[in-house]
Protein backbone atom coordinates (compact mmCIF):
# COMPACT_ATOMS: atom_id res chain seq x y z
CA UNK A 1 0.00 0.00 0.00
CA UNK A 2 1.36 3.41 -0.92
CA UNK A 3 1.94 5.69 2.02
CA UNK A 4 -0.48 8.54 2.58
CA UNK A 5 2.26 11.11 2.75
CA UNK A 6 5.64 10.56 1.33
CA UNK A 7 8.25 13.24 1.65
CA UNK A 8 11.50 12.77 -0.07
CA UNK A 9 14.56 14.95 -0.04
CA UNK A 10 12.66 17.98 1.19
CA UNK A 11 14.81 21.08 1.41
CA UNK A 12 13.66 24.43 2.71
CA UNK A 13 15.70 27.59 2.83
CA UNK A 14 14.60 30.96 4.08
CA UNK A 15 16.02 33.97 2.38
CA UNK A 16 16.08 36.88 4.70
CA UNK A 17 18.08 39.99 3.95
CA UNK A 18 21.57 38.69 3.21
CA UNK A 19 21.31 35.55 5.33
CA UNK A 20 20.08 32.19 4.15
CA UNK A 21 18.61 29.87 6.72
CA UNK A 22 18.92 26.22 5.81
CA UNK A 23 15.96 25.15 7.87
CA UNK A 24 15.35 21.75 6.30
CA UNK A 25 18.06 19.89 4.48
CA UNK A 26 16.86 16.80 2.71
CA UNK A 27 14.23 15.17 4.82
CA UNK A 28 12.68 11.83 3.93
CA UNK A 29 9.55 11.10 5.85
CA UNK A 30 6.74 8.75 5.31
CA UNK A 31 3.35 8.52 6.93
CA UNK A 32 1.06 5.61 6.35
CA UNK A 33 -2.66 5.99 6.63
CA UNK A 34 -3.87 5.66 10.17
CA UNK A 35 -0.43 5.73 11.73
CA UNK A 36 0.90 8.07 14.35
CA UNK A 37 4.28 9.51 13.65
CA UNK A 38 6.24 11.87 15.89
CA UNK A 39 8.92 14.32 14.91
CA UNK A 40 11.21 15.14 17.81
CA UNK A 41 14.02 17.59 18.07
CA UNK A 42 15.35 20.61 19.83
CA UNK A 43 14.04 24.05 19.16
CA UNK A 44 14.95 25.28 15.71
CA UNK A 45 15.67 21.87 14.30
CA UNK A 46 13.13 22.36 11.54
CA UNK A 47 10.24 20.23 12.75
CA UNK A 48 7.56 22.79 12.12
CA UNK A 49 9.07 23.85 8.84
CA UNK A 50 8.76 20.36 7.44
CA UNK A 51 5.07 20.18 8.13
CA UNK A 52 4.43 23.75 7.10
CA UNK A 53 6.08 22.88 3.84
CA UNK A 54 3.69 19.99 3.49
CA UNK A 55 0.78 22.34 4.00
CA UNK A 56 2.51 24.88 1.78
CA UNK A 57 2.08 27.57 4.35
CA UNK A 58 5.62 28.85 4.36
CA UNK A 59 5.13 32.09 2.50
CA UNK A 60 7.13 33.72 -0.23
CA UNK A 61 10.42 33.94 1.63
CA UNK A 62 10.84 30.16 1.71
CA UNK A 63 12.35 28.12 -1.06
CA UNK A 64 11.07 24.59 -1.01
CA UNK A 65 12.47 21.75 -3.10
CA UNK A 66 12.16 18.01 -3.13
CA UNK A 67 9.03 15.98 -3.46
CA UNK A 68 5.99 15.82 -1.25
CA UNK A 69 3.68 13.12 -2.37
CA UNK A 70 0.16 13.09 -1.08
CA UNK A 71 -2.02 10.22 -2.19
CA UNK A 72 0.18 9.88 -5.22
CA UNK A 73 0.16 13.55 -6.34
CA UNK A 74 3.06 15.92 -5.88
CA UNK A 75 1.91 18.70 -3.63
CA UNK A 76 4.74 21.03 -4.58
CA UNK A 77 3.62 20.98 -8.19
CA UNK A 78 -0.02 21.58 -7.40
CA UNK A 79 -1.58 24.94 -8.25
CA UNK A 80 -2.65 27.02 -5.28
CA UNK A 81 -6.36 26.39 -5.91
CA UNK A 82 -5.95 22.66 -5.83
CA UNK A 83 -3.76 22.91 -2.79
CA UNK A 84 -6.49 24.84 -1.04
CA UNK A 85 -8.80 21.89 -1.66
CA UNK A 86 -6.43 19.68 0.29
CA UNK A 87 -5.52 22.08 3.04
CA UNK A 88 -7.90 21.92 5.90
CA UNK A 89 -9.90 19.20 4.19
CA UNK A 90 -7.67 16.19 3.81
CA UNK A 91 -5.07 17.57 6.14
CA UNK A 92 -5.82 19.35 9.35
CA UNK A 93 -3.35 21.18 11.48
CA UNK A 94 -3.23 22.21 15.10
CA UNK A 95 -0.67 24.45 16.64
CA UNK A 96 1.31 24.91 19.81
CA UNK A 97 -0.22 28.14 20.90
CA UNK A 98 -3.95 27.98 20.33
CA UNK A 99 -4.61 31.45 21.69
CA UNK A 100 -2.53 33.08 18.99
CA UNK A 101 -3.77 30.80 16.25
CA UNK A 102 -7.34 31.77 16.97
CA UNK A 103 -8.58 35.18 15.99
CA UNK A 104 -9.27 36.97 19.26
CA UNK A 105 -12.16 38.95 17.84
CA UNK A 106 -14.27 36.11 16.50
CA UNK A 107 -16.19 33.53 18.43
CA UNK A 108 -14.83 30.03 18.42
CA UNK A 109 -18.02 28.93 16.72
CA UNK A 110 -17.43 31.23 13.78
CA UNK A 111 -13.90 29.98 13.47
CA UNK A 112 -14.72 26.34 13.93
CA UNK A 113 -17.11 26.18 11.03
CA UNK A 114 -14.70 27.87 8.67
CA UNK A 115 -13.07 24.70 7.31
CA UNK A 116 -16.52 23.47 6.32
CA UNK A 117 -17.47 26.78 4.78
CA UNK A 118 -14.23 27.23 2.91
CA UNK A 119 -14.65 23.85 1.34
CA UNK A 120 -18.39 24.22 0.87
CA UNK A 121 -19.00 20.89 2.50
CA UNK A 122 -22.15 21.84 4.33
CA UNK A 123 -24.25 24.81 5.29
CA UNK A 124 -23.29 26.99 8.20
CA UNK A 125 -26.02 25.62 10.40
CA UNK A 126 -25.12 22.05 9.61
CA UNK A 127 -21.51 22.89 10.34
CA UNK A 128 -22.57 24.41 13.60
CA UNK A 129 -24.36 21.26 14.60
CA UNK A 130 -21.30 19.29 13.73
CA UNK A 131 -19.15 21.62 15.77
CA UNK A 132 -21.36 21.04 18.78
CA UNK A 133 -21.01 17.33 18.32
CA UNK A 134 -17.25 17.51 17.98
CA UNK A 135 -16.83 19.74 20.97
CA UNK A 136 -18.73 17.23 22.97
CA UNK A 137 -16.47 14.54 21.65
CA UNK A 138 -13.33 16.38 22.69
CA UNK A 139 -14.74 16.71 26.15
CA UNK A 140 -15.94 20.25 26.32
CA UNK A 141 -19.08 20.40 28.40
CA UNK A 142 -21.92 22.64 27.38
CA UNK A 143 -20.76 22.97 23.76
CA UNK A 144 -23.63 25.08 22.47
CA UNK A 145 -22.79 27.80 24.96
CA UNK A 146 -19.09 27.60 24.29
CA UNK A 147 -19.49 28.17 20.59
CA UNK A 148 -20.58 31.67 21.40
CA UNK A 149 -17.51 32.43 23.47
CA UNK A 150 -14.35 34.15 22.37
CA UNK A 151 -10.95 32.47 22.55
CA UNK A 152 -9.80 34.45 25.57
CA UNK A 153 -12.74 33.19 27.55
CA UNK A 154 -11.45 29.63 27.50
CA UNK A 155 -8.48 28.09 29.22
CA UNK A 156 -5.44 26.86 27.32
CA UNK A 157 -6.45 23.23 27.55
CA UNK A 158 -9.94 23.97 26.32
CA UNK A 159 -8.61 26.03 23.44
CA UNK A 160 -6.39 23.19 22.40
CA UNK A 161 -9.43 20.93 22.37
CA UNK A 162 -11.24 23.50 20.26
CA UNK A 163 -8.33 23.52 17.83
CA UNK A 164 -8.46 19.77 17.64
CA UNK A 165 -12.18 19.77 17.08
CA UNK A 166 -11.79 22.44 14.43
CA UNK A 167 -9.20 20.39 12.58
CA UNK A 168 -11.53 17.42 12.71
CA UNK A 169 -14.49 19.25 11.22
CA UNK A 170 -13.66 17.98 7.74
CA UNK A 171 -12.67 14.46 8.85
CA UNK A 172 -9.13 14.79 7.54
CA UNK A 173 -7.01 11.80 6.68
CA UNK A 174 -4.00 13.37 8.28
CA UNK A 175 -3.80 15.50 11.38
CA UNK A 176 -0.68 17.49 11.92
CA UNK A 177 -0.18 18.51 15.51
CA UNK A 178 2.62 21.00 16.04
CA UNK A 179 3.57 20.85 19.71
CA UNK A 180 -0.05 20.91 20.77
CA UNK A 181 0.69 20.35 24.44
CA UNK A 182 3.93 22.19 25.08
CA UNK A 183 2.17 25.20 26.52
CA UNK A 184 -0.06 23.14 28.76
CA UNK A 185 0.13 21.82 32.29
CA UNK A 186 1.14 18.22 32.75
CA UNK A 187 -2.30 17.13 33.81
CA UNK A 188 -3.94 18.98 30.96
CA UNK A 189 -1.30 17.68 28.61
CA UNK A 190 -2.15 14.16 29.63
CA UNK A 191 -5.82 14.85 28.97
CA UNK A 192 -5.16 16.28 25.53
CA UNK A 193 -2.80 13.47 24.59
CA UNK A 194 -5.26 10.85 25.64
CA UNK A 195 -7.93 12.56 23.63
CA UNK A 196 -5.79 12.90 20.52
CA UNK A 197 -4.76 9.32 20.70
CA UNK A 198 -8.33 8.16 21.12
CA UNK A 199 -9.64 10.24 18.24
CA UNK A 200 -6.82 9.14 16.01
CA UNK A 201 -7.70 5.53 16.63
CA UNK A 202 -11.43 6.03 16.39
CA UNK A 203 -11.31 8.04 13.18
CA UNK A 204 -8.47 6.08 11.67
CA UNK A 205 -6.52 9.24 10.94
CA UNK A 206 -2.87 9.46 10.40
CA UNK A 207 -1.18 11.73 12.91
CA UNK A 208 2.03 13.67 12.66
CA UNK A 209 2.92 14.81 16.11
CA UNK A 210 5.63 17.38 16.53
CA UNK A 211 7.18 17.72 19.95
CA UNK A 212 10.46 18.27 21.66
CA UNK A 213 9.53 15.97 24.53
CA UNK A 214 10.77 12.49 23.78
CA UNK A 215 8.61 10.94 26.45
CA UNK A 216 5.47 12.46 25.01
CA UNK A 217 6.49 11.31 21.55
CA UNK A 218 6.98 7.83 22.85
CA UNK A 219 3.57 7.90 24.50
CA UNK A 220 1.69 9.08 21.43
CA UNK A 221 3.44 7.80 18.35
CA UNK A 222 4.30 4.54 16.81
CA UNK A 223 7.23 5.84 14.85
CA UNK A 224 9.61 8.59 15.80
CA UNK A 225 11.72 10.80 13.59
CA UNK A 226 14.52 12.62 15.36
CA UNK A 227 15.51 15.90 13.77
CA UNK A 228 18.59 17.98 14.24
CA UNK A 229 19.69 21.00 12.26
CA UNK A 230 17.22 20.34 9.50
CA UNK A 231 18.26 16.71 9.10
CA UNK A 232 16.59 13.54 10.21
CA UNK A 233 19.18 11.81 12.30
CA UNK A 234 17.18 8.80 13.29
CA UNK A 235 13.93 7.10 12.48
CA UNK A 236 12.78 4.38 14.80
CA UNK A 237 9.71 2.61 16.17
CA UNK A 238 8.62 4.16 19.45
CA UNK A 239 8.93 0.90 21.25
CA UNK A 240 12.61 0.75 20.53
CA UNK A 241 13.29 4.15 22.02
CA UNK A 242 14.59 2.96 25.34
CA UNK A 243 16.13 -0.21 24.00
CA UNK A 244 18.01 0.56 20.85
CA UNK A 245 19.10 4.02 20.00
CA UNK A 246 21.75 4.17 17.42
CA UNK A 247 22.54 7.85 17.24
CA UNK A 248 24.65 9.52 19.92
CA UNK A 249 22.37 12.55 19.66
CA UNK A 250 19.31 10.60 20.65
CA UNK A 251 21.28 8.92 23.39
CA UNK A 252 22.42 12.30 24.64
CA UNK A 253 18.90 13.64 24.59
CA UNK A 254 17.49 10.74 26.49
CA UNK A 255 20.24 10.97 29.04
CA UNK A 256 19.66 14.61 29.80
CA UNK A 257 16.00 14.12 30.71
CA UNK A 258 15.55 14.14 34.49
CA UNK A 259 13.81 10.98 35.56
CA UNK A 260 11.49 10.31 38.41
CA UNK A 261 13.48 7.29 39.44
CA UNK A 262 17.08 7.95 38.50
CA UNK A 263 19.99 8.77 40.76
CA UNK A 264 20.42 12.33 41.99
CA UNK A 265 23.73 12.78 40.33
CA UNK A 266 24.45 15.51 37.82
CA UNK A 267 22.66 14.85 34.57
CA UNK A 268 24.63 13.96 31.50
CA UNK A 269 24.10 16.46 28.73
CA UNK A 270 25.09 17.24 25.18
CA UNK A 271 27.79 19.87 25.25
CA UNK A 272 27.80 22.84 22.90
CA UNK A 273 25.06 24.69 21.10
CA UNK A 274 22.51 23.34 18.66
CA UNK A 275 23.37 23.95 15.05
CA UNK A 276 22.66 27.44 13.85
CA UNK A 277 21.22 26.79 10.42
CA UNK A 278 21.64 30.41 9.46
CA UNK A 279 25.41 30.05 9.54
CA UNK A 280 25.64 27.52 6.74
CA UNK A 281 25.92 23.75 7.00
CA UNK A 282 28.97 21.74 7.92
CA UNK A 283 30.46 19.45 5.31
CA UNK A 284 30.07 16.31 7.32
CA UNK A 285 27.77 15.09 10.02
CA UNK A 286 25.73 17.96 11.43
CA UNK A 287 26.09 16.65 14.95
CA UNK A 288 29.80 16.03 14.75
CA UNK A 289 31.02 19.04 16.70
CA UNK A 290 28.93 18.11 19.74
CA UNK A 291 29.41 14.40 19.48
CA UNK A 292 31.45 12.48 22.01
CA UNK A 293 32.06 9.70 19.51
CA UNK A 294 33.33 11.87 16.75
CA UNK A 295 35.75 10.16 14.43
CA UNK A 296 37.51 11.07 11.25
CA UNK A 297 34.78 9.57 9.15
CA UNK A 298 32.34 12.10 10.47
CA UNK A 299 33.79 14.66 8.11
CA UNK A 300 31.61 12.94 5.56
CA UNK A 301 27.92 13.19 5.90
CA UNK A 302 26.52 9.79 6.92
CA UNK A 303 23.51 8.48 5.02
CA UNK A 304 20.48 6.93 6.70
CA UNK A 305 21.56 3.45 7.57
CA UNK A 306 19.21 0.63 8.38
CA UNK A 307 19.78 -0.65 11.85
CA UNK A 308 16.68 -2.75 12.22
CA UNK A 309 13.22 -3.12 10.93
CA UNK A 310 11.83 0.35 10.60
CA UNK A 311 14.89 1.74 12.30
CA UNK A 312 17.41 3.90 10.48
CA UNK A 313 20.05 6.27 11.70
CA UNK A 314 22.35 8.74 10.04
CA UNK A 315 25.53 7.84 11.86
CA UNK A 316 28.65 5.96 10.93
CA UNK A 317 28.52 4.31 14.34
CA UNK A 318 25.24 2.75 13.34
CA UNK A 319 26.90 1.21 10.36
CA UNK A 320 29.43 -0.38 12.64
CA UNK A 321 26.71 -1.56 14.96
CA UNK A 322 24.84 -3.11 12.11
CA UNK A 323 27.82 -4.90 10.78
CA UNK A 324 28.58 -6.11 14.28
CA UNK A 325 25.13 -7.28 15.25
CA UNK A 326 23.89 -8.42 11.88
CA UNK A 327 26.93 -9.45 10.00
Amino acid at each position, binding site marked *: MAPLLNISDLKVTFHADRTVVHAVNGVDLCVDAGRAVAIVGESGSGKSTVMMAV*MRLLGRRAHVSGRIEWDGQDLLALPERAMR*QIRGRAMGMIFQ*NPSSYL*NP*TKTIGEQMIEPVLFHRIASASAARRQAVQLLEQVGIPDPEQRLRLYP*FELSGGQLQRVMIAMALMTRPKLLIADEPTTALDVTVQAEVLVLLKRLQRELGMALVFITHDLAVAAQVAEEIYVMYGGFILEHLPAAELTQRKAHPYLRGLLGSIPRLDGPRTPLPFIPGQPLDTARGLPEGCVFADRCAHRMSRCAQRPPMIHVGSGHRAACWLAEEEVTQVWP
Partner: protein
Amino acid sequence: MLRFVAQRVGYMIISFFLVSIITFWLMKAAPGSFLELNLTVGGVNAAAQSINVSPELMRALVAQYHLDAPWYVQYWSYVWGFLTLHFGYSMEFPTTPTLQLIARTFPVSFSIAILSVALAVVVSIAAGVMAAIREHSWLDASTMFVATLGTAIPAYVVAVLLALVFGVWLHWLPVIGFQGPRYYVLPVLSLAIPMIGSLSRYMRNSIIQSLHAEYIVAVYAKGGGLRDAILRHALKNSLIPLVTVVGPHIAGLMMGTVLIESMFGLPGMGQVFATAASRRDYPLIMDSTLLYSVVIMLMNLLVDLLYGILDPRIRKRGYAEGR
Protein backbone atom coordinates in the same frame (compact mmCIF):
# COMPACT_ATOMS: atom_id res chain seq x y z
CA MET B 1 -20.58 47.08 29.17
CA LEU B 2 -22.99 49.08 31.24
CA ARG B 3 -20.46 49.33 33.99
CA PHE B 4 -17.93 50.51 31.50
CA VAL B 5 -20.19 53.21 30.18
CA ALA B 6 -20.98 54.29 33.70
CA GLN B 7 -17.32 54.49 34.54
CA ARG B 8 -16.49 56.40 31.40
CA VAL B 9 -19.32 58.80 32.00
CA GLY B 10 -17.91 59.27 35.47
CA TYR B 11 -14.54 60.05 33.98
CA MET B 12 -16.20 62.38 31.54
CA ILE B 13 -17.78 64.30 34.35
CA ILE B 14 -14.43 64.71 36.02
CA SER B 15 -12.87 65.79 32.75
CA PHE B 16 -15.73 68.14 32.12
CA PHE B 17 -15.08 69.94 35.36
CA LEU B 18 -11.36 70.05 34.75
CA VAL B 19 -11.93 71.49 31.31
CA SER B 20 -14.37 74.01 32.65
CA ILE B 21 -11.90 75.06 35.30
CA ILE B 22 -9.17 75.42 32.73
CA THR B 23 -11.30 77.52 30.41
CA PHE B 24 -12.71 79.58 33.23
CA TRP B 25 -9.25 80.26 34.53
CA LEU B 26 -7.96 81.17 31.09
CA MET B 27 -10.87 83.50 30.52
CA LYS B 28 -10.30 85.15 33.82
CA ALA B 29 -6.62 85.55 33.10
CA ALA B 30 -7.20 87.05 29.68
CA PRO B 31 -6.41 90.74 29.56
CA GLY B 32 -9.49 92.90 29.90
CA SER B 33 -11.67 89.95 30.77
CA PHE B 34 -15.23 90.76 31.63
CA LEU B 35 -14.92 88.39 34.56
CA GLU B 36 -12.48 90.75 36.16
CA LEU B 37 -14.63 93.87 35.90
CA ASN B 38 -14.98 95.94 38.97
CA LEU B 39 -18.62 96.78 39.38
CA THR B 40 -18.51 98.44 42.76
CA VAL B 41 -17.19 101.80 41.65
CA GLY B 42 -18.28 102.70 38.17
CA GLY B 43 -21.42 100.63 38.18
CA VAL B 44 -22.85 98.64 35.35
CA ASN B 45 -22.79 101.48 32.86
CA ALA B 46 -19.10 102.11 33.24
CA ALA B 47 -18.37 98.43 33.01
CA ALA B 48 -20.50 98.16 29.92
CA GLN B 49 -18.64 100.97 28.30
CA SER B 50 -15.28 99.55 29.16
CA ILE B 51 -16.00 96.34 27.29
CA ASN B 52 -18.14 98.08 24.71
CA VAL B 53 -21.46 96.39 25.24
CA SER B 54 -24.86 97.80 25.99
CA PRO B 55 -25.79 98.34 29.62
CA GLU B 56 -28.67 95.98 29.01
CA LEU B 57 -26.30 93.20 28.02
CA MET B 58 -23.96 94.11 30.82
CA ARG B 59 -26.78 93.69 33.31
CA ALA B 60 -27.57 90.33 31.80
CA LEU B 61 -23.95 89.30 32.04
CA VAL B 62 -23.76 90.39 35.64
CA ALA B 63 -26.85 88.39 36.41
CA GLN B 64 -25.65 85.37 34.53
CA TYR B 65 -22.11 85.22 35.84
CA HIS B 66 -22.53 86.94 39.20
CA LEU B 67 -19.69 89.24 38.36
CA ASP B 68 -20.01 90.93 41.72
CA ALA B 69 -19.46 87.67 43.57
CA PRO B 70 -16.27 85.75 44.34
CA TRP B 71 -14.70 83.60 41.62
CA TYR B 72 -16.18 80.31 42.71
CA VAL B 73 -19.68 81.68 42.47
CA GLN B 74 -18.85 82.95 39.00
CA TYR B 75 -17.38 79.63 38.09
CA TRP B 76 -20.36 77.75 39.31
CA SER B 77 -22.83 80.01 37.59
CA TYR B 78 -20.91 79.47 34.39
CA VAL B 79 -20.89 75.70 34.71
CA TRP B 80 -24.43 75.52 35.97
CA GLY B 81 -25.63 77.78 33.20
CA PHE B 82 -23.99 75.49 30.70
CA LEU B 83 -25.40 72.37 32.24
CA THR B 84 -28.91 73.72 32.35
CA LEU B 85 -28.55 75.00 28.80
CA HIS B 86 -28.82 78.58 29.98
CA PHE B 87 -25.81 79.59 28.00
CA GLY B 88 -24.20 82.95 28.51
CA TYR B 89 -24.90 85.98 26.38
CA SER B 90 -22.73 86.53 23.42
CA MET B 91 -21.32 90.00 23.16
CA GLU B 92 -20.96 89.63 19.44
CA PHE B 93 -24.43 88.27 18.75
CA PRO B 94 -26.49 89.44 21.72
CA THR B 95 -29.64 89.44 19.68
CA THR B 96 -29.46 85.70 19.15
CA PRO B 97 -29.57 83.49 22.19
CA THR B 98 -26.30 81.58 22.29
CA LEU B 99 -28.10 78.30 22.43
CA GLN B 100 -29.97 79.15 19.27
CA LEU B 101 -26.74 80.29 17.66
CA ILE B 102 -25.15 76.99 18.48
CA ALA B 103 -28.19 75.01 17.51
CA ARG B 104 -28.07 76.64 14.11
CA THR B 105 -24.37 76.44 13.42
CA PHE B 106 -23.21 73.36 15.23
CA PRO B 107 -25.00 70.82 13.04
CA VAL B 108 -23.32 72.26 9.98
CA SER B 109 -19.82 71.90 11.40
CA PHE B 110 -20.58 68.62 12.95
CA SER B 111 -22.03 67.09 9.85
CA ILE B 112 -19.11 68.31 7.77
CA ALA B 113 -16.69 66.81 10.24
CA ILE B 114 -18.52 63.53 10.49
CA LEU B 115 -19.09 63.24 6.78
CA SER B 116 -15.45 63.85 6.02
CA VAL B 117 -14.35 61.35 8.63
CA ALA B 118 -16.77 58.80 7.26
CA LEU B 119 -15.62 59.42 3.73
CA ALA B 120 -12.00 59.26 4.75
CA VAL B 121 -12.50 56.04 6.65
CA VAL B 122 -14.33 54.32 3.84
CA VAL B 123 -11.89 55.40 1.17
CA SER B 124 -8.85 54.62 3.22
CA ILE B 125 -10.09 51.19 4.13
CA ALA B 126 -10.51 50.44 0.45
CA ALA B 127 -7.15 51.94 -0.46
CA GLY B 128 -5.44 50.28 2.47
CA VAL B 129 -6.84 46.88 1.58
CA MET B 130 -5.84 47.30 -2.04
CA ALA B 131 -2.33 48.29 -1.15
CA ALA B 132 -2.01 45.57 1.44
CA ILE B 133 -3.11 42.82 -0.92
CA ARG B 134 -0.51 43.86 -3.41
CA GLU B 135 2.15 44.51 -0.82
CA HIS B 136 5.40 45.79 -2.32
CA SER B 137 3.93 46.04 -5.80
CA TRP B 138 3.96 49.23 -7.82
CA LEU B 139 0.27 49.66 -7.01
CA ASP B 140 1.04 49.56 -3.34
CA ALA B 141 3.97 51.90 -3.71
CA SER B 142 2.11 54.43 -5.80
CA THR B 143 -1.05 54.36 -3.70
CA MET B 144 1.01 54.93 -0.61
CA PHE B 145 3.07 57.64 -2.22
CA VAL B 146 -0.06 59.52 -3.19
CA ALA B 147 -1.44 58.95 0.30
CA THR B 148 1.69 60.30 1.90
CA LEU B 149 1.55 63.27 -0.38
CA GLY B 150 -2.01 63.80 0.78
CA THR B 151 -0.90 64.05 4.38
CA ALA B 152 1.67 66.64 3.49
CA ILE B 153 -0.69 69.06 1.79
CA PRO B 154 -2.64 71.21 4.19
CA ALA B 155 -6.42 71.15 3.95
CA TYR B 156 -6.65 74.79 2.96
CA VAL B 157 -4.45 74.30 -0.05
CA VAL B 158 -6.52 71.30 -1.03
CA ALA B 159 -9.59 73.47 -0.66
CA VAL B 160 -8.35 76.06 -3.13
CA LEU B 161 -7.34 73.43 -5.64
CA LEU B 162 -10.69 71.72 -5.40
CA ALA B 163 -12.54 74.99 -5.80
CA LEU B 164 -10.44 75.77 -8.83
CA VAL B 165 -11.10 72.43 -10.47
CA PHE B 166 -14.73 71.79 -9.62
CA GLY B 167 -15.94 75.36 -9.35
CA VAL B 168 -14.06 77.35 -11.92
CA TRP B 169 -13.00 74.88 -14.57
CA LEU B 170 -15.74 72.32 -14.51
CA HIS B 171 -18.53 74.46 -13.08
CA TRP B 172 -19.90 71.43 -11.30
CA LEU B 173 -20.03 72.65 -7.78
CA PRO B 174 -20.57 75.93 -5.99
CA VAL B 175 -17.54 77.36 -4.25
CA ILE B 176 -19.25 79.56 -1.68
CA GLY B 177 -22.49 79.72 0.14
CA PHE B 178 -24.70 77.17 1.68
CA GLN B 179 -28.00 76.13 0.22
CA GLY B 180 -28.07 72.37 0.21
CA PRO B 181 -26.22 69.13 -0.07
CA ARG B 182 -24.20 70.23 -3.09
CA TYR B 183 -22.56 72.82 -0.93
CA TYR B 184 -21.16 70.16 1.32
CA VAL B 185 -19.12 68.43 -1.34
CA LEU B 186 -16.07 70.62 -1.58
CA PRO B 187 -15.63 71.31 2.13
CA VAL B 188 -16.02 67.65 2.96
CA LEU B 189 -13.54 66.67 0.29
CA SER B 190 -11.04 69.27 1.43
CA LEU B 191 -11.14 67.92 4.93
CA ALA B 192 -11.22 64.30 3.92
CA ILE B 193 -8.36 64.23 1.46
CA PRO B 194 -5.51 64.93 3.90
CA MET B 195 -7.14 62.51 6.30
CA ILE B 196 -7.41 59.83 3.67
CA GLY B 197 -3.71 60.19 3.24
CA SER B 198 -2.78 59.34 6.75
CA LEU B 199 -5.57 56.87 7.39
CA SER B 200 -4.95 54.75 4.32
CA ARG B 201 -1.30 54.48 5.16
CA TYR B 202 -2.29 53.45 8.60
CA MET B 203 -4.86 51.03 7.32
CA ARG B 204 -2.39 49.42 4.96
CA ASN B 205 0.18 48.89 7.68
CA SER B 206 -2.33 47.54 10.07
CA ILE B 207 -3.84 45.13 7.55
CA ILE B 208 -0.40 43.94 6.63
CA GLN B 209 0.34 43.49 10.28
CA SER B 210 -2.88 41.54 10.78
CA LEU B 211 -2.04 39.41 7.77
CA HIS B 212 1.16 38.40 9.49
CA ALA B 213 -0.68 37.25 12.58
CA GLU B 214 -0.70 33.58 13.39
CA TYR B 215 -4.43 33.23 13.21
CA ILE B 216 -4.17 34.06 9.53
CA VAL B 217 -1.86 31.08 9.10
CA ALA B 218 -4.62 29.08 10.73
CA VAL B 219 -7.10 30.44 8.16
CA TYR B 220 -4.90 29.21 5.34
CA ALA B 221 -4.43 25.92 7.13
CA LYS B 222 -8.20 25.55 7.15
CA GLY B 223 -8.22 25.93 3.40
CA GLY B 224 -9.12 29.59 3.18
CA GLY B 225 -7.62 32.01 0.68
CA LEU B 226 -6.44 35.61 0.82
CA ARG B 227 -10.01 36.81 0.37
CA ASP B 228 -11.19 34.90 3.41
CA ALA B 229 -8.16 35.98 5.35
CA ILE B 230 -8.81 39.64 4.69
CA LEU B 231 -12.57 39.83 4.66
CA ARG B 232 -13.27 37.45 7.48
CA HIS B 233 -10.34 38.19 9.74
CA ALA B 234 -7.71 40.80 8.99
CA LEU B 235 -10.09 43.60 8.11
CA LYS B 236 -12.01 43.61 11.34
CA ASN B 237 -8.91 43.24 13.43
CA SER B 238 -7.07 46.01 11.69
CA LEU B 239 -10.04 48.31 12.18
CA ILE B 240 -9.31 48.26 15.88
CA PRO B 241 -6.11 50.27 15.65
CA LEU B 242 -7.78 52.46 13.05
CA VAL B 243 -10.34 53.48 15.61
CA THR B 244 -7.49 54.67 17.78
CA VAL B 245 -6.32 57.12 15.17
CA VAL B 246 -9.74 58.17 13.98
CA GLY B 247 -10.64 59.30 17.49
CA PRO B 248 -8.10 62.10 17.63
CA HIS B 249 -8.87 62.94 14.03
CA ILE B 250 -12.46 63.65 14.94
CA ALA B 251 -11.33 65.78 17.82
CA GLY B 252 -8.98 67.65 15.54
CA LEU B 253 -11.64 68.10 12.94
CA MET B 254 -14.06 69.75 15.27
CA MET B 255 -11.70 72.68 15.12
CA GLY B 256 -10.21 72.04 11.72
CA THR B 257 -13.43 73.09 10.08
CA VAL B 258 -12.83 76.72 11.00
CA LEU B 259 -10.59 77.47 8.04
CA ILE B 260 -12.65 75.46 5.65
CA GLU B 261 -15.85 77.12 6.79
CA SER B 262 -14.50 80.59 6.27
CA MET B 263 -13.05 79.52 2.96
CA PHE B 264 -16.35 78.24 1.63
CA GLY B 265 -18.59 80.60 3.54
CA LEU B 266 -20.43 77.96 5.49
CA PRO B 267 -22.62 78.92 8.44
CA GLY B 268 -20.76 76.65 10.82
CA MET B 269 -19.78 76.77 14.41
CA GLY B 270 -16.18 77.27 13.40
CA GLN B 271 -16.99 80.69 12.02
CA VAL B 272 -18.92 81.70 15.07
CA PHE B 273 -16.10 80.51 17.13
CA ALA B 274 -13.41 82.26 15.15
CA THR B 275 -15.37 85.47 15.36
CA ALA B 276 -15.82 84.98 19.07
CA ALA B 277 -12.12 84.40 19.56
CA SER B 278 -10.97 87.30 17.45
CA ARG B 279 -13.50 89.71 18.94
CA ARG B 280 -12.88 88.41 22.44
CA ASP B 281 -16.43 87.45 22.95
CA TYR B 282 -15.57 85.67 26.15
CA PRO B 283 -18.96 84.31 27.15
CA LEU B 284 -19.35 82.73 23.75
CA ILE B 285 -15.78 81.42 23.81
CA MET B 286 -16.39 79.84 27.17
CA ASP B 287 -19.59 78.16 26.19
CA SER B 288 -18.37 76.95 22.86
CA THR B 289 -15.14 75.62 24.33
CA LEU B 290 -17.10 73.64 26.80
CA LEU B 291 -19.46 72.47 24.13
CA TYR B 292 -16.60 71.37 21.93
CA SER B 293 -15.01 69.56 24.82
CA VAL B 294 -18.21 67.74 25.57
CA VAL B 295 -18.53 66.76 21.95
CA ILE B 296 -14.95 65.59 21.85
CA MET B 297 -15.48 63.63 25.02
CA LEU B 298 -18.62 62.08 23.62
CA MET B 299 -16.72 61.21 20.47
CA ASN B 300 -14.05 59.59 22.57
CA LEU B 301 -16.67 57.66 24.44
CA LEU B 302 -18.09 56.58 21.13
CA VAL B 303 -14.66 55.52 19.99
CA ASP B 304 -14.24 53.51 23.15
CA LEU B 305 -17.58 51.86 22.67
CA LEU B 306 -16.63 51.13 19.11
CA TYR B 307 -13.58 49.44 20.45
CA GLY B 308 -15.78 47.27 22.53
CA ILE B 309 -17.92 46.43 19.54
CA LEU B 310 -14.91 45.55 17.44
CA ASP B 311 -12.90 43.87 20.13
CA PRO B 312 -14.71 41.39 22.34
CA ARG B 313 -11.73 41.22 24.69
CA ILE B 314 -12.43 44.78 25.68
CA ARG B 315 -16.16 44.30 25.72
CA LYS B 316 -16.16 41.15 27.78
CA ARG B 317 -13.34 41.81 30.15
CA GLY B 318 -15.13 44.90 31.30
CA TYR B 319 -12.81 47.27 29.53
CA ALA B 320 -10.15 46.71 32.14
CA GLU B 321 -6.92 48.62 32.47
CA GLY B 322 -5.29 50.95 30.09
CA ARG B 323 -5.44 51.48 26.36
